[in-house]
């Protein structure tokens, strides 16, 4: 019997070994896979177990956290949610994150390895460093000026500092309060459905993610291409352009909105926004050179991150001459985000060098120790310095005595360009009013701000739609705010 008892004992030992091996398999080998399973709530619970780090504007947080006492504990709150929604995006237990909340999620949620001096420590202790903060480049007064200017209208504003690429304002109107998406439950679901069903698209970030036909504001790109390629050497020389201008290879006549554009010089054409002259110049520059210049200004780049991704602005690369003519005045398939057009103005203001726009100045640990600083980055030369100087002169004329007089600021040097963009089937849609501009203190000092404003004001009378009437005053308010010492 002794022998059989031993056998039974061996059998039980075998069972024990099987258990131990299987437990080791589950807890070590399979562990990562189980943790990554979308049905596993643990990562989410852990993620929301601590207050999220803050997004700051001018050093003051525009976000907060609220203890919900639920499973996913800390819910995001926003101070001035609608104002900063295009910057912060939302952070929702139900719908994830967007914009900065997404782009800087690793820092804000505390998973970024840079948050701890000893990453291994957190691995071992199974803890998590507190969420870090993200300090934005946005200036509250500039943002507020833009937001107030767009109040009650549909549109967007993007403002950048030409010399650095710092984004000073990013506004989309109408906006929404991201706080309504924080948390879980029917209330959040209902808010999400309501916002998504809203025909005015309050959750659309028009400044970064919507592309509009840039209309006449694109003439700045066309003019820069003409000067860079030498197609135009003297901006004041007449261009022998008929009014209206028959599009090459077709019988279609391109008209002008104003008068006095027949045979106008390029300077006049920019000042008075002549379609005919700029379309003809675009054709003369040619497809290759036009697409080249557009690319150097930032068009056709789907990879721009600020760090939120930005929609690709488009300038077609394969067109017949008549299509090129229309594209050169910002029609046909040319489309641009407001940020892209702000970059166009900024490139002119910065002597031709285009700086990569960025929104996050630096990220810090919760105790203020730096994690990362965003350095300035050049996207290369959009045009030669000489061309940039000439373009500045042309743009200043627009504001001093041209289509953009509403943007003038006493005591400051302001350059701008209006735009009215046709869109829709057969151009039946209400045109968009554009204004892009830059402003500096003058006296040889470099411009401090470049702005793009688009107003898609469906409620206005058609005749009132013009860059000067609807968009220029907003641009002026934004530039004034930027020029005022913070």
């Amino acid at each position: 019997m002794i022998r059989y008892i031993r056998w039974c004992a061996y059998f039980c030992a075998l069972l024990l070994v099987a258990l131990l091996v299987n437990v080791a398999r589950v807890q070590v080998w399979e562990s990562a896979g189980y943790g990554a399973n979308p049905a596993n709530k643990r990562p989410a619970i852990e993620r929301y177990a601590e207050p999220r780090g803050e997004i700051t504007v001018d050093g003051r947080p525009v976000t907060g956290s609220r203890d919900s006492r639920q499973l996913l504990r800390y819910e995001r709150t926003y101070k001035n949610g609608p104002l900063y929604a295009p910057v912060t995006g939302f952070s929702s237990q139900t719908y994830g994150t967007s914009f900065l909340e997404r782009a800087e999620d690793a820092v804000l949620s505390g998973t970024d390895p840079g948050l701890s001096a000893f990453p291994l420590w957190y691995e071992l202790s199974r803890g998590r460093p507190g969420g870090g903060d993200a300090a934005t480049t946005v200036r509250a007064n500039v943002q507020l000026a833009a937001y107030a200017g767009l109040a009650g209208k549909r549109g967007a504003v993007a403002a950048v500092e030409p010399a650095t690429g710092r984004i000073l304002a990013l506004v989309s109107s109408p906006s929404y309060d991201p706080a309504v998406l924080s948390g879980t439950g029917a209330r959040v679901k209902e808010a999400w459905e309501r916002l998504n069903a809203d025909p005015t698209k309050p959750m659309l970030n028009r400044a970064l993610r919507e592309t509009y036909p840039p209309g006449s504001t694109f003439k700045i790109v066309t003019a820069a291409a003409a000067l860079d390629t030498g197609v135009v050497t003297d901006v004041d020389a007449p261009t022998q352009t008929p009014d209206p201008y028959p599009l090459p290879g077709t019988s279609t006549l391109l008209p002008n909105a104003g008068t006095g554009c027949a045979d106008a010089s390029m300077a006049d054409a920019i000042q008075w926004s002549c379609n005919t002259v700029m379309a003809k110049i675009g054709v003369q520059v040619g497809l290759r050179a036009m697409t080249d210049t557009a690319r150097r200004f930032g068009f056709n780049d789907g990879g721009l991150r600020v760090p939120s991704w930005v929609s690709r602005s488009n300038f077609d690369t394969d067109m017949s001459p008549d299509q090129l003519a229309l594209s050169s005045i910002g029609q046909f398939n040319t489309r641009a985000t407001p940020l892209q057009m702000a970059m166009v103005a900024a490139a002119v203001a910065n002597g031709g060098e285009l700086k990569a726009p960025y929104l996050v100045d630096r990220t810090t640990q919760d105790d203020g120790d730096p994690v990362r600083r965003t350095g300035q980055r050049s996207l290369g030369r959009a045009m030669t310095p000489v061309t940039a100087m000439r373009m500045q002169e042309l743009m200043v004329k627009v504001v001093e005595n041209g289509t953009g007089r509403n943007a003038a600021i006493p005591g400051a040097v302001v350059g701008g360009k209006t735009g009215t963009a046709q869109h829709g089937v057969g151009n039946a849609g209400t045109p968009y009013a554009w204004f892009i501009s830059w402003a500096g203190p003058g006296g040889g000092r470099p411009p401090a701000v470049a702005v793009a404003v688009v107003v898609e004001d469906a409620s206005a009378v058609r005749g009132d739609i013009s860059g000067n009437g609807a968009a220029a005053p907003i641009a002026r308010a934004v530039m004034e705010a930027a020029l005022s010492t913070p």
Partner: protein
Amino acid sequence: MTALTAQVAEPAPPPPPDARAPKRRGVELSLLCGAVLISVLGHLYVGLTTTGHIPRPAAHYAAGLAVAALVAHLAVRLFAPYADPLLLPIAVLLNGLGLVLIQRLDATTPGNVTAGDQLRWSGLGMALFVLAVALLRDHRVLQRYAYLSVAAALGLMLVPVFFPAVNGAHIWIRFAGLSFQPGEFAKILLAVFFAAYLAANRTALALTGRTLFWKLKLLPGRVLGPILAIWLLSVGVLVLERDLGTSLLFFGLFVIMLFTATGRIGWIAIGLLLAAVGAYAVGTFEPHVNSRVDDWMNPFASIERGDGPGQLAQSLFAFGAGGLLGAGLGHGQSFLIGFAAKSDFILATAGEELGLVGLTAILLLYGLLVARGFRAGLALRDPFGRLLATGLASIVALQVFVIAGGVTGLIPLTGMAMPFLAQGGSSVVTNWIIVAVLVRLSDSARRPRPAEEAEA
């Protein structure tokens, strides 16, 4: 595997000629101190992590546990001085850890605080341990009650059929707000019966019967009949009650004890064959079991269907989240498993919060307990005692394997309580009595015998 020739039990080896057999009670006391200390520290730690302050009744808790352990120790010292010194400390430590885990899970279910109940049941279990050690002066007395105990066991198992089912199983008796699982206690009674019966009919079982072919012999009907009848009856009751874990346990116990008594591999083969056929049949026809098997084959099927993770998936997630070192007591999320987190799935909390390291330690503690049971069986000289020790050790081993294997996805999940750890009064009390009997058996085994008692 060749069939073994049947053997009559070989004569016991002569006892070692040492004058004073070591009692090792001091070892037991120091191990007990360690066990109590670990449990109390765990209690404090859980209190700190879940509520932020030291639990108010901590001093009472510590004192209570220490006193209970000391009383149990004194009982062993007085009534079973030669008992194995590991049995009691392991039981105390496992019970203490179970209380810590339940206290920790209570923090996640404020509406259903059960640690207090479990503490009272543990107290009752330890009191019964003391009583059993004190009253049962010789395990051979149990032999006389073989038929009484089998009758009692069947009665206990039949009673819950008349009570309403809980979670699809008729295994509880409810009265006066308390629920009791009689099936738990029936395990001991059945082990006693099997041991007594097999010890009495060992020779007949091993040597008689017609040869079926080669060396495989059939058992004589009159010997095998009663056993088979009892066993079938118990299994039948269990199928009626939908308690497959216990059914599996009884079956395993039966096969193991039969093998220990007769040494016939053939029986094991037939037993396993029967088990396989039975398992297949039940798995096919019984939807309750069928779903368990499906779950085991693919624990994440419900996720793929979009119904969210099932219990087993949540359990595996918990084990996985524990990793090597665990999240730490109070830092896991094993409450996601749901209502069974404190009972069947208590091990998942241990796995998640104590990690592979802690879980391995717990499993090794069980292994040690089982090994000590077998050791007592090996050292005993009467067949009844040997069979009983083997049976009780196997009960613990099989129970641990069935439930631990179930919650870790090694075998299909069958509801069963983890000895000492899981919440459940009947289980704790039953396991304390098993330990008491093992203490008694090991005392008999290690007690130096006067020369005249050493018969061949």
